[in-house]
């Protein structure tokens, strides 16, 4: 088995799930994973420290996602996801709902990407918070802050705080969107 095949086997599943968490679209997630490995094929030999390959791959996928989003107004103009938040935060259902993959993705997609990316990386458990900071190119403290706040939002989405939670959440999301639009 080639070195490249080993690398694909080791990481493509987590990369796909990270892509799904970001894009919430299987086709786009697949494309992102393929593009990531193709970029590795072209530039990976420039990475001297091969132990950094995993972080490099996740960094590249995230960057590619941001590039796609910039190219597509579908992403940049996406409104704050109130409907999605309401849908996943249905109090009648959530109490007894078993968490499954789709539910997890729905919850993540209801958050602004500011929180979505670090939370997805955290829950994939492939990276420490320091590595997440490196992947997302933000300070360590920022990652910790986003994890903490993002988890709060997830919990609120999963419990019945339809009247109080969204206000705070929307403020944070607006903040995040403003940053992206800027």
């Amino acid at each position: 088995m080639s070195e490249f095949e080993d690398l694909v086997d080791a990481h493509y599943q987590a990369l796909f799930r990270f892509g799904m968490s970001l894009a919430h679209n299987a086709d786009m997630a697949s494309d992102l994973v393929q593009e990531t490995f193709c970029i590795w094929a072209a530039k990976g030999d420039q990475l001297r420290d091969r132990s950094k390959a995993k972080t490099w791959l996740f960094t590249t996928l995230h960057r590619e996602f941001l590039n796609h989003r910039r190219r597509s107004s579908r992403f940049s103009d996406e409104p704050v996801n109130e409907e999605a938040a309401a849908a996943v935060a249905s109090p009648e259902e959530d109490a007894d709902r078993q968490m499954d993959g789709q539910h997890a993705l729905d919850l993540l997609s209801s958050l602004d990407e500011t929180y979505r990316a670090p939370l997805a990386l955290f829950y994939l458990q492939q990276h420490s918070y320091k590595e997440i900071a490196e992947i997302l190119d933000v300070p360590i403290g920022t990652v910790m802050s986003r994890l903490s706040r993002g988890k709060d939002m997830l919990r609120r989405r999963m419990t019945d705080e339809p009247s109080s939670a969204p206000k705070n959440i929307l403020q944070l999301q607006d903040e995040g969107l403003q940053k992206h639009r800027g």
Partner: protein
Amino acid sequence: MRLKTFYNSKTKDSKNTVDKERAQFILRSFRPDGSDVEDCDFAEALAMAMENRELGEWLADERAFDASFAKALSSVELPEGLRQDILGCLAGERGDYPQAGDAQDADFIGALASVQTPPSLRMEILAAMERSTRVSPTRQKKWFFHRLAMPVAAAAGVAFAFFLFDQRKPAILATSGPLPLDVVQAGFLRTFESPLFSLDETRKQHEDIVAHLKSRNLPCPCCLPPGLANVKGIGCRELDIDGKSGTLICFDEGDNGVLHLLIFRRQDVCGDFPPREHPVFAQNGRWAAARWEDHNKVYILTGNTEIKKLSTIF
């Protein structure tokens, strides 16, 4: 990160409260599977959670929630074929198709590339096939001949290429052992040069072709490359080369022409055949070929196409 470095100036009570909040803040970055347990940056907060019951309970609850969410996320299903798509995409992007590395492969492809099908060949083949048919063809048979004309002509072109190749470099005589690849090529030539050439079965459905091959105890494709899965078959026949039974299957790729797949049992052919995931490709002129090994069988796939297009089949 160290708690005491942040709050040295606080009073004891307020410091405890703030420390607890700070510990919670830190521990929220602690992965639920315990991957971070060796990270000294968590040590102080973890120690505090062990001493402080309220904080300990909060941590247990937090980790349970995190573990549940992580498990759910890890259960997100992957698209079927994603791995192969990645590897195929990479092969295309890198342009690093395994190239035929030996002289034999070069000859093989060179011969294919040199093929110039004589203008009259098609009609000669059709006429030969008509003569070789002992029973007058029915209406359906006539249709079959016309249907077969293109693949046979193409296949005969391949055979002609082998013939030219063999004139320059006679095949090594086969022994009772495994056949060298050039002997396979020479045998392939003889089959297609014969005026008695025909396909044993004309079937579009792969399962029908496989059923026929199994009934004849001929090498069957246990696993076709993904890109051939939905390509209609034309038919198949036995290749008997120096006592070794092989199979030829023709596939109709529509506007992309015909692909020819030769299959032999592994023990009947010697030489280097890579696994199916890494076929060896070669290109010369308009002809491309790939060969590989899978489940104790060897395969040669060729057609009038380009490596890039042929590689998408894998």
